[in-house]
């Protein structure tokens, strides 16, 4: 959903990005322009179906005249801006930010694109010390029900789940960021268990998590058993049959069993979000 919705007429602006003059619509973010121009830009906390929170800082770019680097995901482009997306400064920041995450969080179950970016920026956090000597977010996973698992040693605090649970999708407000600084973490009130919280099990938090901190119980169990194999999984797109809304479902199938359900973020009905039935109610298919 990168198109700007048709509304009041907008003026056109022109920016220079990596030496190339480019036209854009007023209000477009720098990231919008990068994506349109095919400039691969890493993002962790940004998603097309959520409001940008610009907290992960891996999408930073250099803008001439700006003292610091700027987050491309949230910064609207301005006429005449001169932007570099691959300067030494930008590469250095992106690399170190990934390294800071890598040194404190388990990144091994991240999405394929996150892994590609980490490879691209040659991420190596070994100089920060081994994980048993330095502060990390290591902790056992929270398994409180049969639907999903919160494995917070994989949480990079991108705020996506909070947004999806709150104003950007579900309006349930079951989780929020609690604590401060390195102790900041995603939590229900007083850390009550999910079944006791306001959670409605829509699973939209799972849908947006980039690092495998929030996963289906099926996926968690299979990963622990060593049977999770994304390469052999088939994805079948269908329409949810529970009600008449018409949500698109993507059924991820491994060994003829549904192992997880997603919805495309650019689908006009769901914007990637589902409800408990669409997300978790597939057991009857297999019985």
């Amino acid at each position: 959903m990168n198109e700007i919705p048709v509304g009041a007429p907008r003026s056109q602006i022109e920016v220079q990005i990596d030496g190339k003059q480019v036209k854009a619509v007023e209000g477009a973010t720098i990231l919008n322009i990068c994506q349109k121009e095919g400039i691969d830009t890493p993002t962790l906390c940004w998603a097309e179906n959520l409001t940008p929170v610009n907290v992960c800082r891996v999408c930073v770019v250099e803008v001439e005249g700006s003292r610091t680097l700027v987050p491309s995901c949230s910064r609207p482009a301005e006429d005449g801006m001169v932007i570099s997306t691959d300067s030494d400064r930008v590469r250095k920041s992106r690399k170190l930010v990934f390294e800071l995450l890598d040194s404190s969080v388990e990144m091994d179950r991240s999405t394929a694109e996150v892994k590609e970016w980490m490879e691209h920026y040659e991420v190596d956090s070994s100089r920060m010390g081994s994980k048993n000597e330095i502060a990390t977010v290591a902790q056992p996973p929270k398994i409180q029900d049969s639907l999903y698992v919160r494995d917070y040693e994989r949480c990079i605090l991108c705020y996506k789940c909070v947004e999806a649970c709150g104003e950007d999708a579900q309006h349930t407000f079951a989780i929020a960021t609690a604590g401060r600084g390195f102790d900041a973490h995603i939590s229900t009130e007083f850390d009550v268990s999910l079944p006791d919280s306001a959670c409605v099990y829509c699973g939209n938090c799972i849908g947006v998590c980039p690092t495998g901190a929030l996963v289906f119980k099926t996926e968690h169990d299979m990963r622990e058993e060593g049977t999770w194999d994304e390469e052999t999984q088939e994805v079948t797109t269908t329409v949810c049959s529970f009600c008449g809304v018409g949500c698109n479902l993507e059924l991820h199938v491994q060994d003829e069993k549904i192992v997880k359900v997603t919805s495309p973020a650019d689908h006009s009905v769901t914007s990637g979000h589902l409800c408990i039935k669409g997300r978790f109610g597939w057991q009857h298919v297999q019985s």
Partner: protein
Amino acid sequence: MSDLKFGTEEPTAEEKTAIDELLSEIGPAEIKLDERFVVGGRTRVKDRRRLLLPALHELQNASGWISPGGLNYACKVLGIPPAEAYGVATFYHLFSHESPEAKDLIHVCDDVACRLVGAETLIKDLKDSGYKVKPSPCLGQCERAPSVLIQRTNKKDLTAVAESNNSLTAVNVEQVLTSETVTPQMTVPQKGSEALSLLSRVGVVDPESIEGYIKLNGYDALKKALTIGPDKVIEEVTTSKLSGRGGAAFPTGVKWRAVADQVGRPRHLVCNADESEPGTFKDRTIMEGDPFAVIEAMTIAGFSIGAEQGWLYLRGEYPVAAERLENAITEARKKGFLGENIAGTEFNFDIHLYKGAGAYICGEETALFNSIEGFRGEPRNKPPFPTTHGLFGEPTAINNVETLVNVLSILTLGGEKYAMQGTGNSTGTRLFCLSGRVVNPGVYEHPFGITLREVIEAAGGVTNSKKIKAILLGGAAGSFVTSNYLDLPMTLEDTREAGVSLGSGVVMVFDESDDLPDTVRRIAQFFRDESCGQCVPCRVGTVRQEEVLARFTRNTPFDTDEELLEDLSTVMKDASICGLGHTASGAVLSAINLGLLERTL
């Protein structure tokens, strides 16, 4: 409220009363059963959200912690999701989340100045005496270190500080607790001097009497402002070249003009009194010693930018200042200097006093807005700037206490005459917070252009005539300098050229016997503790920085540690959201460059 789910815990009678009193004027949130929270309800209860921080203070005071029952009740009547309110409550140092073991919680400052003079012994002694103790970041009492803040249940908070040359002992703390009446002496060594402007009334006037204030030219400046009109006030401020005293030195006239020119209404005037920079206590001195000046200056600022609402955000660790400011606001209302038709004109203006709850980051202007609004004190990305999108997303001018108080003498003297003090672009006088190894620590007012040496000599020089090892200039967000800098004129231009900063006016002196590696590690720990945790470079970068410093103090650094520190510094400066991350490595790197981390064993 049909869409929100609350817990089943009930508040105690005290908690319920405290919250009900807070809401006595507006009553609990009422949302019809069929009104969906997401559509109608949330918009209608939005303006209640700003009562969350005061409500948390009430709960903490009522039962010594933020209990599930209390929070649940506050959430119901304010219409706030419990998870969000919990997230806000856990953001602040001064809110406890476990059932309290004792009625009094003693926060002992173990920050840079206090740890030089026995803070750690005090912590141990208090613990041994059976008190519940929590080490605290700088409490802003550095001139009378060590110091403590006693947070109490169902009673007002107290501070205890070292008196004259004696250190503060566990016995002193006990005395303060029993007597409950402590009015720490004003530490303004220049008290009563003719040369003073910002401090002229501090220690001279009765801080609780508006009559006393008026007798000493109080409210003359406001009357003048009301006569000459808002545009002329801004013009005088612009002519005076007054720049922000909170650390960033932004021209005040430019800021005010920008807000006054906004079409959007309402507009807000915010006074940033969240003075939490380690080593800084100048704003506290003004607020405790001359609170009406702050209220008058805010009124003038509000008048000039066209704001009817003023917000004074005071750090939670200043109970004496809070009491005096509250009194000043009440007295000013009674005298018609706040409220409707001020001094018989058509100008309306009132001030809300907000107390922070222990978070350095809330001194960052956009974090401060979020804190008032009832959200976590996380800074916002800029742009947009406060002049267009400030408090509640509306046009806002935000100024530091010292900056605002300057406006009084600008109006009395006239901008041009004011600008004749100091140097070319560093006009006026500046407050310096002298602490550490100086004979007479305290707040000093000097014209810009005075040298660092003169600043230290005015405070009686170095204690026991020892040799200076280093000076922390500008606070933890500033940098260390050595005696090579003693002839540096204290102006914005000269310090900028020298690659240092006046920051919040901190001049903390360390002598050759002081353990600088320990001080530098404490500064690194300060940033680690105070990072809000929102952006990755600062959240993890400050932790890694502190770990490197800890390795240095243990004499077990990795070969690559200096390089790592420099990389962390570059990236925290380049990629962090706000000034905390941008400045978190300044003092640390300057210490390394000056060789202060080398142990002289």
